[in-house]
């Protein structure tokens, strides 16, 4: 049995990941893919690097998925986050859930990705086309406006 939350340095394969949440009792499956886009705050982005604090990510990530299963009554849930360098168009994060009916699957998928983005110690560094680089949410961290 694969862990319900994990980090990956390899590209994510939605077709194989979705099989991990397949369940004969589920009538609905919802997934979310976070993609690397080519722009941010008006700047052209060349590529990204994600860095994670692995030990805490894996325990806190597993807790998020377990809480979602409990809270929304899911049959299964899996979330995987990439680390390392990523190119434009790659999948940075994949979340998939299955449940008896669709509403809880939609709600749970959104809840999980929100928690991953807000709570897990994963940082994104943008490398811009013009050659600069910056940690997202940190380049203006010393000002309150960045909150």
């Amino acid at each position, binding site marked *: 049995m694969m862990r319900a939350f994990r980090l990956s340095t390899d590209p994510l394969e939605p077709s194989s990941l979705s099989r991990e949440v397949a369940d004969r009792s589920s009538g609905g499956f919802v997934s979310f893919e*976070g993609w690397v886009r080519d722009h941010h705050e008006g700047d052209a982005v060349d590529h990204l690097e*994600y*860095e*994670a*604090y692995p*030990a*805490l990510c894996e*325990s*806190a990530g597993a807790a998020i998925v377990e809480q979602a299963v409990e809270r929304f009554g899911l049959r299964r849930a899996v979330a995987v*986050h990439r680390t390392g360098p990523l190119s434009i168009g790659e999948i*940075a*994060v994949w979340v998939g859930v299955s449940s008896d009916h669709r509403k809880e699957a939609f709600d749970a998928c959104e809840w999980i*990705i929100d928690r*991953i*983005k*807000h*709570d*897990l*110690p*994963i*940082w*994104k*560094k943008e490398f811009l086309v013009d050659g600069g680089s910056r*940690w*997202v*949410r*940190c380049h203006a*961290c*010393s000002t309150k406006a*960045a*909150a």
Partner: protein
Amino acid sequence: MIATTVWYSILRDEAGRDEEPWEIHGETAGHLYIRASARHSFSLPLERLRVAVNDAFTDMDHPLRDGDKVVFIAPVGGG
């Protein structure tokens, strides 16, 4: 007593290293960040950070002990 900070993301860039040992005398995690910030001129104020001790989230009032691993967590941006 020695506690070790492990630096990630912008804090590692600003500290210029991955890990750092600190002689401690019963101070809290928050106090250690103030010391580290004085050494490395971190751009982030304490209020913008979270902290983990020995791979579990805790608060800045957490008293440090010998052998602790301390990670200060800059604002995150996964996904």
